[in-house]
Each structure stands twice: as structure tokens, then as C-alpha cells.
């Protein structure tokens, strides 16, 4: 079970080095800033960023921004990705409907979600709804496409086995199709969450009065480079944490899948 114990020495060394590498970059960055190797107005020093973090955290405004962004992402992501799985399943099992909608899907899919954002604002207002819709739109496609691909890749032999055992369509769906599609669904979910995080930040930069994206944009207006970095690093950390969480859930849900 313990991954660390199973790793070879080479991998352990490399894992330690990958952390050291980040530390080294930060160290170089700090020293460089102190010695005046680069312009700290454009590139704040790690210690300034930390001070700015303390201020933002101390006043509670960082938490507030994180919470607002998080809520937007979660509502948009869960509805978009959920719909993606559902529609992916329905279309890949109902071939005539899939054919019927294929051109429509083909036209809509290439549109960058953010290009639609101004329209969404027009339709749903400048409030929460337009941001949630744009995030849902972004989360839909990766999950939808991956789910469809997963169903397509399901082992024909196992489906035939289910037929030979006279399993009903519903039974076949839950015993064969869904489990074999799960790894693909998770790949889609992970792709979607990173898109959704990127999407919320941009949407908040364009039209919001709160959220991490707003914090970054507002700090730029105020020429507070360090706060901008706090925003960016916050996104990086949360994105990384969410991906780790999804990977953990995946390893539990797809327990038979060894290479996660």
C-alpha cells in the first residue's frame, strides 16, 4: 500500500531532488532580489510575497477570495462535468442520437468558452450565473469526450460475455460499461478541473468584484506585485491539491486499476 516504500532508490532520490529544485529556485530568487539582480517592482522577492500573504490572510480577505472562487468553480465544475459524464454515456450508447447530434457538437466544441463569456454576461447578468455557466461549459467537454472514448474502448469481449449470460442492458451498463469507463472519466475530471480553475480566474479578471482573479487584477491596478504573486501561488497550490485529491479518489474508486 505504501507507495514510498515500494519506490526504487533512484526514484526516491529523484523525488527528493524535485522538491529541492523548487527550494533552490526560491532561494536563488530571494538572494537575487536582495542583491538587486532583478527589478523587484516587476518580480517581488519571496519574502515580500510572504509578507503580502500575511497581510491578506490576516485581514481575512484572501480566505474570502479563495472561498468565492472555490464556490464558483465547484458549482460550475460539478454541473458541467456531471453533465459531461451523463451525456457522454447517453450518446455513446445511443448511436442514432450520437449521429444526429454529431454536427451540432462538432460546431460548438471548438468555441473557446471565454469567447462566449461576454455573451453569457449578456444573457445571465454580471453576477454569479454567467461565471458558473462559463466554468460549466469548460468542464463539460473534457469529461464528455473522455466518457465517450471510455465507452468506446470498453472490452468487447466482456460485453459479449454479458450478452452470453443474458444480462439486461441496465445490468450490462453497471457491471461492465461503467467500471471500464471509470478510468477515462477520471482522466476527464482531472483535465476539467484544471481548465475550470483557469477559467474562473480569467472570468474574475474580466468581470468580478471578488475572487482570486479579481485579487490579481486589482493588485495590478494598485501596482502591488507581491499580492499578484500571492494570487498566482494560491491558484497553483489549490490546483495541485485538488488534483491530488482526485487522484486519491480515483485510486479508491478504481481499486482494480494498478497503475494510477
Amino acid at each position, binding site marked *: 500500500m505504501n507507495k514510498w516504500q515500494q519506490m526504487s532508490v533512484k526514484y526516491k532520490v529523484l523525488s527528493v531532488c524535485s522538491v529541492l529544485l523548487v527550494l533552490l529556485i526560491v532561494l536563488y530568487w530571494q538572494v537575487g532580489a536582495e542583491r538587486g539582480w532583478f527589478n523587484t517592482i516587476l518580480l517581488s522577492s519571496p519574502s515580500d510575497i510572504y509578507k503580502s500573504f500575511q497581510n491578506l490572510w490576516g485581514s481575512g480577505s484572501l480566505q474570502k477570495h479563495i472561498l468565492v472562487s472555490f464556490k464558483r468553480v465547484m458549482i460550475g465544475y460539478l454541473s458541467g462535468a456531471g453533465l459531461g459524464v451523463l451525456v457522454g454515456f447517453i450518446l455513446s450508447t445511443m448511436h442514432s442520437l450520437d449521429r444526429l447530434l454529431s454536427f451540432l457538437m462538432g460546431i460548438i466544441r471548438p468555441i473557446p468558452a471565454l469567447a462566449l463569456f461576454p455573451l453569457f454576461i449578456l444573457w445571465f447578468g454580471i453576477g454569479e450565473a454567467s461565471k458558473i455557466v462559463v466554468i460549466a461549459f469548460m468542464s463539460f467537454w473534457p469529461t464528455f469526450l473522455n466518457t465517450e472514448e471510455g465507452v468506446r474502448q470498453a472490452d468487447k*469481449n*466482456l460485453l*459479449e*460475455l454479458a*450478452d*452470453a*449470460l*443474458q444480462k439486461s442492458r441496465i445490468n450490462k451498463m453497471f*457491471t*461492465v460499461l461503467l*467500471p471500464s469507463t471509470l478510468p477515462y472519466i477520471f482522466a476527464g475530471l482531472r483535465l476539467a478541473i484544471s481548465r475550470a480553475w483557469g477559467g474562473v480566474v480569467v472570468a474574475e479578471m474580466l468581470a468580478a468584484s471578488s475572487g482570486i482573479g479579481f485579487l490579481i487584477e486589482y493588485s495590478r491596478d494598485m501596482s502591488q506585485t507581491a499580492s499578484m504573486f500571492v494570487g498566482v501561488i494560491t491558484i497553483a497550490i489549490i490546483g495541485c491539491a485538488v488534483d491530488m485529491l482526485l487522484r486519491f479518489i480515483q485510486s479508491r474508486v478504481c*481499486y*482494480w486499476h*494498478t497503475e494510477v
Partner: protein
Amino acid sequence: MAVENEVNIRHIRQDFPMPSGKLEVLKDINIDLKGGEFVSIVGESGCGKSTLLRIIAGLDRPTDGEVLIGGERVAGVSSKVGILFQESRLLPWYSTERNIAYGLPKGMDKKEGRERVKTLIETVGLKGFEKALPSQLSGGMQKRVAIARTLAGRPKVLLLDEPFAALDAFTKMNMQEEILRIWGREKITTLLVTHDIDEAIYLGERVVMMSPKPGVIKRVIPIELPEDHSRTSDEFDSYRREIFKGFFGSDKRMSEFF
């Protein structure tokens, strides 16, 4: 009235469409299996053995001809027929127990089902591996799970597609004994496909020899062995010679095989 578990294979032809015309895979196959009979089919790879079993199981429609089971024409899959595919085809997300239970008849009483699965696990010698996933089992063990799953449906007719091909010699012999025991006890009509001549003789009451392109029946040899089916007896050897001669012509070339 036809016996419930007798099988009649009548004039089966199977062509597959190909870019360059059609591929004749089976041509006028006729075999009658009495209820409870054990028949082996031997033939080289590609002669259409799996195709024939798929037709009998109702998974594929033949181009021509028909299969009757208990006098009824096969028009699709039925619970009367159990097929053991060439591959084990276990659900990777299910334990041994659940994979076997997957073969239980629809609507079976839960408690009765559990009992049957338990008995089958003992029959195929997988006690202690009830909770193991397929990936934690050896190829031979996976095959045994698949056999148990097929038997869980209590078929009247059993179709075995090269069931022991992937097994080592020892496991293979054990499984052959096991199949004979089960067959002897339950009197299931059994059609075994193999490319192992010894296996065909050892298990079958008749051996059907097939040749390829297109797949046709070359000869049918009734097997009468002493009670213990000893593989080293003179009778066994003479059947082996006869079949080799049937496939390869002269007795001379055959000596190269021993």
C-alpha cells in the same frame, strides 16, 4: 420428442464478407450430439472452431443451416447453453466470488446463490481466493474462475473453447480430470474444442477432425478407452496414430512428433 439436452448441428455454413469477396469459414458442418455426450473437435488454428461454437451459443447467426438444442432451433443466447470462451473474460473489478456469481441464473434466491458459488469455489479448488481480484490470480486460476462461472448457470449444454490451452501440463491434467468428474456427475452435453490431440482423445467419446479453408469435417472417430482413460495404454496410442495419420498423411512423418 427430442431429449432436452441433445444438440443437432445441421448444414452449418458461415461466410464472412471480405474486401476481396467472401471468406468461407465453415462449410456444411453436421454433428449430432446425444444428450449427455462428450464430443471433442480437433483442428488447426483458424479452421473455424470458435466460429462454430459461437453459432451454437447463439452469439452469431450462420449464413446457412441451423442448430437445434433439445429440438428447438437456436435463435439467440439461451440459459440452456454455457460457453467457456477461449479467453477467461473475467471482470477485472470483481473478486473470484463475484465473478462466479455473475454466471448465476437470473432471479435466483440470494442464499441459494451464495451456496452454489461456495460449492463451485471448492470444486475448482480456489478456496482461500474468494476475495482475490483477477489480477491477483495466475492464468490457470483465472481459467478456473471462468469455468466455475460457466457452471454456475447450470447449463444443459457446455461449450468449451480451448479451455486448457494456456495452462501448464500439471494444471491442465487436473482440470481435465475435473471436467470429466463434473461431466460424469451432471451429464451435461459437452462440446470441447481443442488443438491438443491427446486432450481430444482423453476427454471425448468421439473425436471430430476438422480441416481448414473452408472448415469442413474430415472424419469422426469414436473413442473407446479402458475405464481409467490411461494415456499410456496401447488403445490410446493407436487412436493418437490414427488421428495423426488423418491430419498429416503418412505414418513416417508422424514419428517426428514423438
